[in-house]
């Protein structure tokens, strides 16, 4: 079974979110990268772009499929993981560490409450 860190929050569309003083780091879960297979391309949003929770904010592409990435919370994109341009495999190798995608300066703290807990996300992928 894929790793699902207890301290993170999760979107049903398989993104994880980690809040550090209002800056939320976003990535895709170990389960999601496993389902996608080896990534060959990652498209990230632009720094300064303002997104609403649920907006498309990027694309991950593997040899099997391309999949949209949705912003789990609303706010402004303040940083993107530029290393992924040359090394998309970081997402496969370390989805919760070096494979993070972007960071959002969260505008609505309550957005986090709409995300799933680790237990709820676990239950979701078991029912899929």
């Amino acid at each position: 079974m894929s790793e699902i860190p207890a301290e993170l929050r999760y979107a049903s569309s398989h993104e994880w979110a980690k809040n550090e003083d209002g800056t939320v780091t976003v990535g895709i879960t170990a389960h999601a990268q496993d389902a996608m297979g080896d990534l060959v391309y990652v498209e990230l949003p632009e720094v300064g772009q303002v997104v609403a929770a649920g907006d498309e904010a990027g694309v991950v592409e593997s040899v099997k499929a391309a999949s949209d990435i949705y912003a789990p919370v609303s706010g402004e994109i303040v940083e993107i993981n530029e290393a992924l341009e040359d090394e998309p495999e970081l997402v496969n190798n370390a989805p919760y560490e070096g494979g993070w995608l972007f960071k959002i300066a969260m505008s609505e703290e309550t957005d986090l409450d709409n995300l799933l807990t680790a237990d709820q996300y676990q239950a979701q992928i078991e029912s899929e």
Partner: protein
Amino acid sequence: MSETKLIFQLSQPGRSAVSQAPKAVAEDKLSAIPAHLRRQQKPALPEVSEMQVVRHYTNLSSKNFAIDKQFYPLGSCTMKYNPRGANRAAMLPGFLNRHPLAPETHSQGFLSCMFELQNFLKEVTGMKGVSLAPMAGAQGEFAGVAMIRAYHEARGDEARTEILIPEAAHGTNPATAVMCGYKVREVPVGKDGDVDLEALKAACGPQTAGLMMTNPSTCGVFERQIEAIAKTVHEAGGLLYYDGANLNAILGKVRPGDMGFDVIHMNLHKTFATPHGGGGPGAGPVGVSERLLPYLPTPMAGQRDDDSYYWVDTDTLPTSIGHLSAFMGNAGVLLRAYYYARSLGRDGMIRVGEFSTLAANYLLKRLEAIGCTAAYPDRRASHEFILTFAKEAKELGVTAMDIAKRLLDYNQHAPTTYFPLLVPECFLIEPTETESKEALDEFVDAMAAIMEEARTEPDMVKEAPFTQPVRRLDDVKAARELDLTWSE
């Protein structure tokens, strides 16, 4: 099988092939090209004999999987047999040597074929007008959504910024909507493969420009609530786009125009048996309902009162979205489709729909009987259907990709894999009406053998293929380190 060298690696200085040697060009003809635009060095072309060229490419062609050699059940692609007669007709010198700029009086035969083809396609789809101008399915989609945009803009209705697309739509639809400047909103599909009607109702509003769908959908099932869907979208002021990817299933049986669609594109290289070009010439005619008639792309074939034919262009149809290419569509492909439609006739087209659906359902039931899992076991298949190998992947470690690769060893082209995305570890299988029962049975035998191998020798299946010119390719490396240019 030995590794084939590149033609460049066969090159020896001074060798040439008479039939391919360039004709000498007189200096006075070259002088029309300014000196700074002429190349100073000869291009690095391989120097090989005619015999080497023939042998090299004949050997390469024999390594291909092809509809002329094998069963090719590529779902969503409708890889049916391309009748040789259609090819012969399109190669008649009168068609082949016609210049696209020749005067209308010299093109009456060609124009009459195009005019009749427009009418056949109108009749079989139930639309009010057809343009043959789009050069391929993607351009047909572009033309279709461009017409939806032109329609809303002509009415001053500029608040419509969204195109709705069900999860089970054809994969190209979101790209088309974005190309035409729309935002895409996805509509979920229920467990039975039908659109979630409540979610659709919630998504519709004054921002809705239209809905793009495929029916039957890429789930391989016919959308049963199509009338309610059409009503919902129309009441919100949006238009309905029909992606013709799966038209083969309903050909002659149900018409998109009667389902309430406003615009449709057809892939003649699928439904009308013209060759799939590997990115080469296709044909994606568009059909429209009454209200989109003013926007059809030009040129189209028209008929005057005296029965002569002419080109309908933007001078007579100024509201048209205009030209999509220098001329009108791919003439040779359209002629093949014309021949196909004429040779089938109305009754033949109905049999296409019936037999493509019968072949798919026969294959589905037989594959279920040997232990394959259908993604929608309670639904009857359309002309294609989905199997899921999620159980095999979990319990045996054998994935859909492994089974697909092993099929090659049984001389069967693999079906479409991992599409649609909403079904895990899936095959999308489309046998088409041109396959015999014997060919379908051979595929079932191959699948039965592989399912047994997956249980008894899973590690072997994971290593397949063994009998092909190459073993399993590193497609991740190929995508990450794209290298298409030969260099020494």
